[in-house]
């Protein structure tokens, strides 16, 4: 089985990171498997971790009273799940649930945060890369908001 460090190099979010930082980040990661239906994270929980999906599909969900759990996005292989570990108040803002069996790398965000405080260069790199992930998700979410397939309201 390939090392976490090797895997990280293929994830677009971490591509091009300097080797010593890749090694450092990989050192904060552990492989984990989630059974179908198992939660990787729950809304409101402290966000001290983030995940990189190696295999399988994860659904991001929000529970709305009376509407059940709404799936707002699904993420698959190579995707990064979770950015609240980087930003206060460090709390998960949605549920992340394995739709099928999921193999993922869990990263100790709390530990990485400490390392970013010590090494501003690492901090800048991670901030930049996670900002790019958020930008992509935000753009996609905005398109979802437009409800382009919705029934047109007569003008």
């Amino acid at each position, binding site marked *: 089985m390939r090392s976490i460090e090797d895997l990280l190099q293929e994830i677009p979010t971490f591509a091009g990171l300097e080797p010593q930082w890749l090694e450092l980040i990989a050192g904060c990661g552990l492989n984990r498997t989630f059974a179908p239906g198992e939660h990787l994270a729950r809304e409101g929980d402290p966000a001290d971790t983030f995940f990189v999906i190696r295999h399988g599909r994860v659904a991001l969900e929000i529970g709305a009273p009376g509407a059940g759990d709404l799936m707002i996005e699904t993420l698959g292989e190579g995707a990064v799940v979770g950015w609240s570990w980087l930003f206060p108040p460090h709390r998960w803002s949605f549920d992340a649930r394995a739709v099928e069996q999921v193999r993922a790398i869990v990263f100790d965000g709390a530990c990485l945060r400490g390392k970013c405080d010590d090494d501003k260069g690492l901090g800048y790199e991670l901030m930049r890369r996670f900002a790019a992930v958020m930008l992509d998700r935000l753009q996609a979410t905005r398109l979802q908001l437009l409800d382009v397939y919705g029934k*047109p*309201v*007569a*003008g």
Partner: protein
Amino acid sequence: MSGAAVTIERDGLDDLIAALKRRGFETIGPTVRDGAIVYAEIDGVGDLPAGWTDEQDGGHYRLRRREDEALFGYAVGPQSWKRWLHPPELTLWRAGRAVDGGLEIETEPDDPPSYAFLGVRSCELHAIAIQDQVLKDGAYPDPFYSARREGAFLVAVNCTVAGGTCFCVSMETGPRAEAGFDLALTEVVEPERHYFVCEAGSERGAELLAELPRAGAGDAELAAAAAGVAAAAADQGRQMDTEGIKELLYDNLEHPRWDEVSERCLTCGNCTMVCPTCFCTTVEDGSDLAGESAERTRRWDSCFTLDFSYVHGGSVRSSARSRYRQWMTHKLATWIDQFGTSGCVGCGRCITWCPVAIDITEEVAAIRADALD
């Protein structure tokens, strides 16, 4: 043209109109009504606007008395010949529904009069040719337009007076009629004589001309006619630089000028009604109360209406800015890609009849002077 030019005296026009009537034509020509030059059915010279001229400018039209009795001493009025060739309202077909749900649809029988148009200006000849391309010469000829157009007898008049908003010289559509007419007249009014230099533009024009009292046109008469046309050419009220105009407008679709002009534009659509080349229409489907018979009528419409671009619960062009831009860029730019010529013939009607005096030549000049890179 077929044959040499001849002269006809003023009263010879009565013979011309009579000859057209003998051939079964309903002759439409200029008359004075409601303070404007209005095209209507005419029976003789007496119906023509003798001694009238027009004063035109942005948002301004007045008739004034001339010092002579010229019959065509004015430019163009609010109407154009499309009023007869491309009727403002028309029933296209009627349908009936049987009890079993079966449909029967019948194209409306169409038996229009044979029209003769007396007094067609060169810009109007170009406009008719432009509408021919849109409505008659494409893959789906409009049978109603074709029925009125094919066989229409066109008696052109070469302008000897330029209108205050005319710019046919810029658009290369006049003032002299070059083609597309059966007969062309140039009016000469002298203290002792009122006559027309006349040339035939077709075989049937020549045949009709041969029935009229006429004489060969001499050098002095030809020169007088030419001088009149030259005066109209020299006295143009407006001008438009058409060099590269298509690319200019394509490159300036977000120019701030559109915001400025749209603050004035009322989207009233007058320009589209008076423009001789505007052809856009809408259809209306209706039925009787019992739901047994239905019909579709076609009506003139304007790209200035919100309904024109309505799709999916809203209009594509909801702002006045976008609608003015659509009209002007269609007329001067996209028309060229669509039909091979400009859509504008420089008649100036849109300038004269705009209630807020928006001037298409001024808009082009403003964008050109300050074009976006």
